[in-house]
């Protein structure tokens, strides 16, 4: 979402104007920390990251929904407190 381009002004010039109230510190900051685009290395991606992404997808644990955990807890509690239900449940399985 960019603002409409001001007539006759480049994007960089427009942005410089927008932050001109901090011109002094901006200049020093850019001297200490040059914009990444001006650096010779690191500004662009050097390799395809899809293999890393695939590894990440494979490593991800299978997520069990909370509802399934709740059902399991209820069944366990029922088996402990009402053992007579076990044959009835086994009959229906």
């Amino acid at each position, binding site marked *: 979402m960019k603002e409409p381009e001001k007539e006759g002004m480049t994007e960089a010039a427009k942005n410089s104007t927008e932050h001109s109230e901090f011109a002094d510190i901006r200049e020093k*900051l850019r001297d*200490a*920390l040059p914009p990444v685009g001006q650096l010779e290395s690191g500004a662009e991606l050097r390799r395809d990251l899809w293999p890393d992404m695939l590894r990440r997808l494979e490593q991800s644990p299978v997520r069990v929904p909370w509802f399934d955990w709740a059902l399991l807890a209820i069944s366990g509690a029922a088996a402990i407190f009402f053992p007579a239900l076990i044959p009835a449940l086994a009959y229906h399985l």
Partner: protein
Amino acid sequence: MEVLQRFAAGDLDAFESLFRQHQRDVYRWIVRIVRDPAVAEDLTVETFWRMHRGHAGFHPDANFGAWLRRIATNVALDHLRRRRPYVELPDEIAAEQKPDSAVQEQTRVALRKAFAELPPRLRVVAQLGLVEDETYPEIAEALSITAGAAKTRMFRAIRLLRKKLQRLGVHS
């Protein structure tokens, strides 16, 4: 069916297609915030991982690029929050400084230190605005805040930076 609709439905091929199409843009955005290529690569993967997890919440008619950039910004901010307050710049980026007088170099080091000590939510605004020349609306959209809030954060970042520099004996 369009790729965004298939992605929202959980199709892995659509996810791969979006990944290949946008990985460079996401990396380029993140490296401008964290200034470390190796970390930016990891965070790019983390961004797409969060995007993949959130596929069901994405509406195919929404602005995909803006949504992805918001996720990338949050991932980068989370990284800055986790990292210890002051970390020297990685050699790869710091080494490209031009040789200059000892005083100027001292000023640069003080500035880098003061800047790295800023709270991440202020630092990211100053980094994108002052160093990377992004406009307030662009910063605001990436951080899901208003342009006014972005400007307020910029003022606070500058005020804090000036204070820290004074304490370090540098006049800004």
